[in-house]
C-alpha cells in the first residue's frame, strides 16, 4: 500500500523517514490507528501478508477500481457484439464508402441467421472477461503507482524480514508533522520493537544505465523482423518464394511429354499395353454406361437393374446428397444454392432447371442419364463422382418425383383411393 511516494531525489545523507518495526499484525493495527489519529498523512505500512482492517486503520479511501473494471467489462461486451455484427452481419452493400479490407462478409454458417446472438455469446463473454481482467490488473498497478522498481527501505537490513514475520510502519520525513525526535518518541510509545532511520535517497536516478541500454538495443532489434516482412509484402521479385521445407517444391516427377531415361523409348508417358484395359474401364454395355441402345437414347432402364423400393430409396438418398442442393428436395429447382444466390443478388444467376418441366419430363431415360453423367450448361458432370448404378437410381427417383407432381387417380392403387377423399 502506498499512502505516499517520495517525489524528488535528494542528497543521500538527509533523513528520509523513520521506520518502526512491530512483531504482530495487532500491534501494527493499533499503531496505525494512533498514527492516523495523530494526523499524519505521509506514511505507509508494510506487512508480509494482507492484514484485515489495515485500510480502515490507515484511513485509505475506498478504491474506485471496480468502476473502471465494470466500465471496461461493459466496453468489452459491446466490442464483442459490434465486432461480430460488423464482420458477419453488416452487409458490405450498405456501407459503400468503407474500404474492402475493412468490410465484413456476410457468410452463412450452419444455416443460422446472419446475425445470430447465441453464436456470438461465447466471443462476447470472452471479450468481457478479458477487458475486465486487464482493467483490474493494469488499473490496480496504475492506481498504486506500480511497478516501482526501487524502494529506499530496501537499504535497511532489518526491513528484510517484512516478507517473513515482521510488520513495519514508515513515516516520511516530508510529512508536515514530521519531527525526528517527537515522531521517534511517538513510535516508541506505540510499542515499536525497533526504530530505524531511513537515510538513503528514496529515489536514485531512475533505471540503471545497463537496463536502459538493453531496452534500447532490444527494441531496435525487434523492429527488424516486421520491417523485413513489410518489405517482402510490398516488393515484387522474380525469384521463387523461399520455402523453409523444400520437399513440396522439389519433387521427383515427370510431366506429360517429358523425357525419362529409365525407359527404353525415353518417354515419361507410358503407352497402354496392347489388348489391355485399366481396372473398371470396361464399359462394354452402352445401355448401362452411356444410356444408349442401338445408338439412340434408351427409353428404358438397363435390364440388369431391378427397380425396387430399395433402389428408388437409394436414388432418393443420392439425390439428396448430389442434386438437392441446386434442384431442391422436391426437384423444383429451388435448392439452397439457388436461395442463397437470390439472397446475395448474384449477377447473371440462372435458376436450376425444374425437374417437373415438360422438356425434362419428355426426355428419354438415357438422355437424362447422359445429362447426369456429363452435365449440361452450368451443371457440372457427375460421372466421376456417382457410380453408374447410382445414377440410374437417381433417375428412378426423379421419375418418381415427376410422377408425384403429375399423378392421375388411376396411378393410385384401388384399395387406397379412399384416402384421397
Amino acid at each position: 500500500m502506498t499512502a505516499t511516494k517520495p517525489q524528488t531525489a535528494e542528497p543521500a545523507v538527509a533523513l528520509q523517514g523513520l521506520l518502526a518495526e512491530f512483531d504482530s499484525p495487532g500491534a501494527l493495527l493499533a499503531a496505525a490507528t494512533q498514527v492516523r489519529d495523530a494526523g499524519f498523512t505521509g506514511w505507509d505500512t508494510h506487512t508480509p501478508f494482507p492484514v484485515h482492517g489495515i485500510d480502515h486503520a490507515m484511513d485509505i479511501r475506498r478504491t474506485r477500481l471496480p468502476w473502471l473494471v465494470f466500465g471496461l467489462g461493459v466496453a468489452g461486451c459491446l466490442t464483442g457484439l459490434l465486432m461480430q455484427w460488423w464482420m458477419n452481419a453488416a452487409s458490405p452493400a450498405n456501407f459503400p464508402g468503407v474500404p474492402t479490407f475493412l468490410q465484413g462478409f456476410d457468410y452463412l454458417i450452419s444455416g443460422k441467421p446472419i446475425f445470430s446472438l447465441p453464436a456470438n455469446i461465447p466471443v462476447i463473454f470472452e471479450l468481457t472477461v478479458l477487458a475486465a481482467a486487464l482493467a483490474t490488473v493494469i488499473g490496480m498497478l496504475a492506481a498504486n503507482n506500480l511497478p516501482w522498481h526501487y524502494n529506499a527501505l530496501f537499504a535497511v537490513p532489518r526491513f528484510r524480514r517484512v516478507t517473513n514475520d515482521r510488520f513495519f510502519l514508515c513515516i516520511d520525513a516530508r510529512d508536515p508533522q514530521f519531527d525526528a525526535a517527537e515522531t521517534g518518541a511517538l513510535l516508541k510509545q506505540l510499542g515499536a520493537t525497533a526504530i530505524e532511520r531511513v537515510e538513503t535517497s528514496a529515489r536514485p536516478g531512475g533505471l540503471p544505465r545497463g537496463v536502459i541500454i538493453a531496452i534500447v538495443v532490444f527494441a531496435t532489434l525487434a523492429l527488424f523482423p516486421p520491417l523485413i516482412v513489410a518489405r517482402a509484402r510490398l516488393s515484387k521479385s522474380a525469384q521463387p518464394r523461399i520455402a523453409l521445407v523444400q520437399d513440396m517444391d522439389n519433387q521427383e516427377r515427370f510431366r506429360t511429354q517429358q523425357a525419362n531415361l529409365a525407359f527404353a523409348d525415353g518417354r515419361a508417358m507410358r503407352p497402354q499395353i496392347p489388348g489391355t484395359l485399366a481396372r473398371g474401364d470396361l464399359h462394354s454395355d452402352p445401355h448401362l454406361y452411356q444410356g444408349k441402345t442401338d445408338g439412340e437414347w434408351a427409353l428404358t432402364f438397363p435390364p440388369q437393374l431391378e427397380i425396387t423400393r430399395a433402389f428408388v430409396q437409394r436414388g432418393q438418398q443420392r439425390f439428396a446428397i448430389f442434386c438437392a442442393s441446386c434442384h431442391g428436395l422436391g426437384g423444383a429447382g429451388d435448392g439452397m444454392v439457388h436461395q442463397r444466390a437470390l439472397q446475395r443478388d448474384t449477377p447473371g444467376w440462372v435458376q436450376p432447371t425444374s425437374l417437373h418441366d415438360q422438356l425434362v419430363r419428355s426426355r428419354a431415360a438415357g438422355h437424362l442419364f447422359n445429362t447426369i453423367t456429363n452435365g449440361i450448361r452450368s451443371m457440372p458432370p457427375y460421372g466421376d463422382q456417382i457410380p453408374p448404378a447410382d445414377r440410374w437410381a437417381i433417375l428412378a427417383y426423379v421419375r418418381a418425383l415427376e410422377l408425384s407432381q403429375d399423378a392421375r387417380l388411376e396411378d393410385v392403387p384401388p384399395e387406397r383411393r379412399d384416402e384421397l377423399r
Partner: protein
Amino acid sequence: MCRPSDATSCGRNVNARSINIEVESRPLTDAAPRLARIAGVLGLVGVVGAALFGFLAGWDVFFRSYLLNYAYVLSLALGGLFFVLLQHVVRAGWSVSIRRVAELVAAALPPLTLLFLPLLIPVVAGMPGVYEWTDRELVQADPLLKSKSAYLNVPFFIIRCAAYFGIWSLLAWFCLWQSTEQDETGAAKHTQRLERLSAPGLLLLAVTITFFAIDALMSLNPHWYSTIWGVYYFSGSVVGFLALFVLLLAFLQRAGRLTHAVTSEHYHDLGKLAFGFVVFWAYIAFSQYLLIWYANIPEEIVWYRPRQGDTWWIAISLLLLFGHFVAPLLALMSRGAKRRSGFLVAAAVWLLAMHWLDLYYVVAPRPWQSGHASSGGPLHATDLLLLLGLGGLFVAIVVWPMGRRALLAKRDPRLPEALAHENV
C-alpha cells in the same frame, strides 16, 4: 446486521470474548416451533388440497407437480450439504459462525427421504404420464428406450435412489453430529474428522447429485440426453440454498440470535457466493443450449422444442434469462448491495422464486411428441398447492430443530476467526 463503520458492535477488531456466545447461540425455543407448526399445517393443507385435485384431474398431473416441488426442496437441502462440506474441505474460518444453520438445512435430508417415497408410486405402478419409460409396451416398441432399459428400469431405479438418499442422509447426519458433539467437548478432533470426510464426501455428493438429476429429471424425456445435466441441477441448487440461507440468517437475527456473531461481512460473502453461482448457473445453462442450438439435430432439440414452442414457454424462458441471470447479475454486483440487509433479503426471495421457475421449466413441459401427450394447461393448481405443501413441510423440517439445538458451532476452534471476519 450493522454498519461497517460501527466498530464496536460489528466484530471489527473486537475481541471474541466480548461477544456472549452462549446468548447468541441458544435455541430459539419459542419462535422456531411456532413457525414450524404454522409451516407444517400449511404444508399439510397444501398436500391434501393437491391430492384432492389429483383425485379429480388425474394422478399423473399430481405426481409431476410433486416431482417438481420435491426436486425444489431437495435441491435446497443438497445445496446446504454442499456448502457444509465445502467449508470443511477448504478449512474455512469465516463461515464457522453461520455453518450450524447450513448444517441444519442439510439435516433435512433424512426426513426428506420419507417425502421421496410417494414418488416411487408412479414408478412402481407404471404411470407413463409421469415417467414414460415405466410403460413396458412402449419400451419394447421403441428401440432407443429398449437399449436404455438396462439402466432405466424400475428395480435398478429404486436401488439407485436408495443409494443416493443413504449417502446424503449419512453425510448430513455425520456433519451435524460431529459439529454438535464439539459443542460439548470442544475438541479439535471433530473438526479434523469432518475435514477428512469432506473431500471424499464432496466427490460422493457430486456423483450422486449428477445421477439423481439424470434419473429423476432427465428421464422425464427418456430419448434425450445432456452430459451437463447434473451440473445444471447442482448449480441451480446452490443458488437456491444460498438464498434460503440468507433468509434463515435474517430470520434468526430478527428473533434475537446470532446478532453479533453474524455481521454484514458474512452476508457480503454469501452475496458473493450467490453472485458467483448465478453466473455459473447461466454459464452451464447456456453451454447446454448453445451446443444443441448450433447442431440443431432432431434427437437433441426435442428438449427445447416444447420450451420454445408457444408463447407461455417462450415467456418463461425469457423470464429465466433475465430473472435468473441478468437481473441478479446486475443487482448483486456492487459491494453495497451485498452488505445491505433489506436488499439482500429481497434478492434472496427473488432468487428462490427463480430457482423454482427453473425447475418448473425443467419438469412441467410434456415431452415433445411423446406417446403420452399432454393433459391440461401449462400451470396446474397442483404445482402451486404442492409448492405450498412441500415447501411448508420443508420449512417445518428445517426450522423445528432450531428450537432445540444451539444455533452456532460455539466451540469450533476457528470460531474467533469467524467473529473477527472482515472483507477487505
